[in-house]
């Protein structure tokens, strides 16, 4: 049964049912280790931040927030800082003293720098400390965090974390019975890379496959509109993911005028899921790949959006191969739109997302784009529109089973355009 306190939390933060269930399990049950499985846009970082702030304010606990990547730690801390100020009315000064960040200062985001500290006393009195897993526990010499000094460890993006990495902060967890670890993440998105450079199992996948009862799934996405939500749900989540009606109906609004020209179909707001087939072949660049024709099509697409009054900050372009990212960035130079790698888009979202698949060859070799986890990240960052710029042949359609399913879904439920 929900307590009065719980009702307050749910009303204030408008948590949905699966989020409320996950939080209740994490705050009021006896299980010391559990997971929260959050597909794209389901608010796992929001729930993680809510768990942290509730544990601090209501249970008077001390929290360690950790993740594999610096950017993830910073993002979770950003949510926590925002919540402490807006929901609990903490002043800037108190928040600065209560939330601290350790690690390599060069890798900390600018807005989190005010929370950065190497001072032991400040760190001992802080209620929430954020760190990467590898910086979390330093056994000798430069030790900043004391053993057994935290009541709860919140690990974000744990789908990317191997068990031995997840064990690094264990010495910091107190011995009390109420000491807890929560692993947030989505193992169907990017996974850890093994020594032989193949994907391996992260802790969340171990937890989900070995002992499903300790993992709660967040099943409502606030990111993907229709039909993207159905594609992601069918291809990656066994149909378990759904979106509220207002999210499903979310559409791009363009300035006056109807898009014209060969790419008009891709730009129209009603076409939320588009595949642009480009005939140009890939080029080998060192150990990687580039594709100039795809870059030119992306440039044309961005110009078209900008011509219709779309702000450049609302467009994200991504590619899996670094030389291709560089080429796309050079053709987009001056437009205000930037391109990045799929790996760096993990956790990010934008209104319009353009994905370059890069590979186009006669052997139907998609390279590491055959990883379902990578394809999941690549096709689930959009709030309003996803445009996949791929080859017009069969490299993406037949590259692997997952890419084939995505291709077929877009061909049947979205729009397919060919560019020569």
């Amino acid at each position, binding site marked *: 049964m929900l307590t009065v306190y719980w009702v307050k939390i749910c009303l204030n933060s408008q948590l949905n049912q699966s989020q409320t269930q996950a939080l209740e399990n994490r705050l009021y049950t006896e299980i010391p*280790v559990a997971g929260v499985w959050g597909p794209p846009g389901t608010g796992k970082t929001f729930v993680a931040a809510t768990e942290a702030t509730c544990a601090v304010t209501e249970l008077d606990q001390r929290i360690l927030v950790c993740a594999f990547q610096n950017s993830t730690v910073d993002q979770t801390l950003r949510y926590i800082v925002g919540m402490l100020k807006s929901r609990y009315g903490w002043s800037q000064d108190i928040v600065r003293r209560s939330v601290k960040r350790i690690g390599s200062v060069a890798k900390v985001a600018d807005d989190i720098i005010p929370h950065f500290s190497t001072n*032991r006393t400040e760190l001992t009195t802080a209620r929430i400390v954020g760190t990467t897993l590898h910086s979390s526990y330093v056994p000798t*010499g430069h030790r900043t965090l004391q053993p057994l000094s935290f009541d709860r460890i919140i690990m974000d993006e744990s789908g990317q974390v191997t068990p031995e990495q997840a*064990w690094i902060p*264990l*010495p910091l967890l107190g011995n009390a019975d109420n000491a807890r670890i929560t692993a947030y993440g989505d193992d169907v998105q990017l996974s850890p890379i093994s020594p032989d*450079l193949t994907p391996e199992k992260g802790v969340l996948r171990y*937890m989900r496959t070995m002992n499903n009862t300790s993992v709660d799934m967040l099943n409502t996405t606030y990111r993907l509109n229709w039909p993207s939500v159905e594609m992601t749900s069918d291809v990656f989540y066994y149909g378990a993911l759904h979106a509220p009606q207002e999210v499903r109906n979310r559409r791009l609004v363009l300035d006056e005028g109807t898009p014209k020209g060969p790419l008009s179909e891709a730009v129209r707001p009603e076409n939320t899921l588009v595949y642009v087939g480009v005939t140009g072949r890939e080029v*080998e*660049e060192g150990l990687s790949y580039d594709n100039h024709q795809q870059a030119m099509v992306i440039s044309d697409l961005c110009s078209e959006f900008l011509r219709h009054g779309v702000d450049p900050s609302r467009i994200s372009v991504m590619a899996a191969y670094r030389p291709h990212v560089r080429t796309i960035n050079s053709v987009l130079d001056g437009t205000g739109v930037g391109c990045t790698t799929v790996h760096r888009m993990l956790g990010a979202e934008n209104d319009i997302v353009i994905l370059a698949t890069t590979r186009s060859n006669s052997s139907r070799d998609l390279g590491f784009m055959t990883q379902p986890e990578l394809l999941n990240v690549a096709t689930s960052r959009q709030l309003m529109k996803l445009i996949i710029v791929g080859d017009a042949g069969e490299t993406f359609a037949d590259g692997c089973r997952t890419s084939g399913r995505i291709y077929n879904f877009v061909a049947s439920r979205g729009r397919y355009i060919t560019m020569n």
Partner: protein
Amino acid sequence: MSAKHIMQQAAPRNESYHLAQSSDIGHAVTCGLKFKLPRVMGAIPEGNESFIPGFIAHNVLQSATETLGRLWRTSPTPNSQQIMETWSPYMHQVFADAREKQQGDPESNLERYISQARTRLLGLAGVLHDKMSQDPAPNRIVSEITITNPVTRHEGRIDAIFEYPEYAETVEWKTYADGGVSAYDRYQTISNGMLVNYRYGRAEDDFTGNILTVITPVKAHNPRPTELALDAIKEARTYMLQVLDGQRVRANLPHRFVCGSCSYQSACTFYMGDRVDSDLKRMLWRRRFRILKKRERTHVNKFLAHRLSQEQLTELRLAESGYRIEETVTAVSSTHGMNTLTLVKQNNYQNADLLYIGDSVRIIALEPGMPLLTCVSCLGSIIESNGSSIVVDVYLGNPNQLRGFQILLLRIEVDLTRRELEGLDFVHRNPGRVQNIAYGLLGEDLFEFAT
């Protein structure tokens, strides 16, 4: 030939790429387990804080050594006070950083440690005064130089090399030593000397142009690289590489009486009579060797850098040359101890497709006639890149000595495996709740293993 073929030929997947570190060789010669415990099991040394003064003094010397050459040339017989004055800005910086970290900690003995560090530095300055009075000034002093010899799979970081026209002097600071040097110090210095021989194009055991010097706060020692010592080092190196490759090799053990002073005593006792559940033990060992495999992969680029030409490295997008240092900013912030370095791309070089913000690189000064992996270098990560110049945060090495050379940037993988091994050791040696939680993170039933 395609880039993939070049890569496969230069670094076949079935080859071993582990490297033996000089500091580990020093341990392995004296006790095989003393190498295995931290490097394979992940054990953490026990002990009190007595290492801190030495550690602080060593931090000062890391950046202050470069000033010695100038002082030696301008004032050949400086007294220890003059040397201390030259070091004083570096001392202030290091002490301020240490104080910042300990601020407000009532239990901190930091001021005592700083005072001890100052005394040790004064002792070292005294020894240096004697040395500078007797010896001619070297042409150049390089400090904190990492040398990798991929042929013998040996790597080490040398505190300083004093370069003379006809010979070189390998210098190790032993800031914690009170007078004599231990067997460990001796073997570590000789193995570093072997790397210095490689740097100057000699056989690794040819010490004809290489003087070994260990400088303690009390006196300077010159360990002799005897044949016996060189054989012991080579044997230990082979043993270490076999262990890292996963082979079962018997460790040579010291006389038991030295174990009383070993900082790994309790870890050693634990692993000698390990009674942990066999399933757990098997799982932990399997994971340890996966981590070691991951560590091995971080060294592959070094082997490629040794085996391929600069053009091939550029073609593979592993290295990019044509940079020069524009500006070095040392310790932008005393709080954060951050060194940044601006590198400018020269006009006659094409911008290759290599560098992104966040990438880790080895910044190598291309010294004429030296093998690439023996040149003066620093490690850093890219914090800004605009096509014609890049800004690097240097986290290891002294960037000032890269000035005047053409710079090559070699992409590296950061080795984060030490912490992972330490986590495994913690789980291995802490039965009950910790092992339950560790199993919980593996999705196993939490209470199955508790009973």
